[in-house]
């Protein structure tokens, strides 16, 4: 009985936070730049590089990660007091694997062409370090609403890097944006013009170098982030 009473008092004592307080806003804005999951925390790189050949794939990939991360963070945060500490990794993996299966089936049903291009990388969201990292670092110790906001912030931080890399690679590599031709055919070298697409951009190494350059620009602008 006494325990219940204590809990009630605590609930009454806790000041009611507005839904978008300064602290909550920071949860969203921090991961966009100063604590970006890809360029600062170095999480989730595996899938970030492989699917950035086209903007369309990158957008669908980041949407999938955003959905899985938000739903997963909410579930883990709701269950956080019920999960035994020793088996928490397995519980987390089961939650992610279930969500990823749902996302994979949804992609297969509604956008089969994108799903085919993403191939194994949708499945690899399961082992995407961003997801496990946010579960461990945030959702296991925070309430549901801040956890969802944290997931939103990190998902968007992941998305903008992905889309930035994809725009660079698609525009310079194949002269297109979202599948639309940007460079007229008559400019092409093959048709007697002066322009040629940089085919190297489509190949894997340039994804790494593009991310490297983004990191370079970001750290040159914000010198606090430089590693010693």
């Amino acid at each position, binding site marked *: 009985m006494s325990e219940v009473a204590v809990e009630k008092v605590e609930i009454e004592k806790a000041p009611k936070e507005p839904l978008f307080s300064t602290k909550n806003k920071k949860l969203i804005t921090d991961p966009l730049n100063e604590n970006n999951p890809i*360029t600062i925390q*170095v*999480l*989730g*790189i*595996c*899938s*970030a*590089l*492989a699917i950035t050949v086209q903007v369309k794939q990158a957008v669908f990939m980041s949407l999938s990660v955003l959905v899985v991360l938000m739903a997963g963070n909410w579930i883990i945060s709701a269950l956080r007091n019920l999960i035994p500490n020793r088996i928490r*990794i*397995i519980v987390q*993996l*089961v939650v992610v*694997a*279930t969500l*990823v*299966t749902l996302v*994979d*089936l949804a992609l297969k049903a509604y956008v089969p062409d994108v799903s085919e291009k993403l*191939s*194994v990388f949708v*499945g*690899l969201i*399961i*082992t*995407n*370090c961003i997801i*496990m990292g946010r579960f461990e670092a945030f959702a296991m110790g925070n309430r549901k609403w801040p956890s969802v906001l944290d997931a939103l912030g990190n998902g968007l931080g992941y998305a903008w890097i992905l889309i930035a890399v994809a725009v660079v690679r698609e525009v310079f590599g194949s002269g297109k944006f979202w599948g639309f031709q940007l460079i007229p055919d008559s400019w092409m070298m093959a048709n007697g013009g002066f322009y040629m697409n940089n085919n190297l951009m489509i*190949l*894997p*190494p*340039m*994804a*790494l*170098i593009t*991310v*490297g*350059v983004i*990191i*370079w*620009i*970001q*750290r*040159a602008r914000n*010198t606090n982030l*430089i*590693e*010693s």
Partner: protein
Amino acid sequence: MEAVNIFIKGIFVENMIFAYFLGMCSYLAVSKTVKTAVGLGAAVIFVLGITVPINYLLENYVLKEGALTWLGAEYASIDLSFLSFILFIAVIASMVQLVEMVVERFSPALYGALGIFLPLIAVNCSILGGALFMQERQYASIGDATSFGLGSGVGWFLAIVAIAAIREKLQYSNVPAPLKGLGITFILTGLMGMAFMAFMGIEL
């Protein structure tokens, strides 16, 4: 002969790091010294060599459409492939746990060398990636699948040891301050990837 081809292809042509970027997180985090890189690389070869054939058996005798025919003709139309993500990751997580316990019991020296890296590997993308590529490419026999697992592991080992060796030497060079650490590692991996592209298109 086919198995040897798959093995060599896994190391050079379809290298996990340079062609598919799998396992990048631990590749970047654990490549500061050659010694730890060798430990993690060996653990990845070990776990890929074990989990790919197990997942191959699971795929072909449980999950695929018609895989349950060995139970009786009435099971021929069952397709359980929607369960593959959950089962693959469960196999990987439990095998890593099991391998850790067996190694600790029978070879304390190896455990000392690999010990801290084994739990890390359950969430290494290259292990699940190996299982998913195996599913997508439909290898003909368990021997081919095993040599694919081992080949990919050796390729990953090669990549992480090479970058660790470069990063050790990099301490003595004058890198622009904003590129230090992470940035230069990305660009170096890109350059190494270009070198590995020389193997592209080799038909084995």
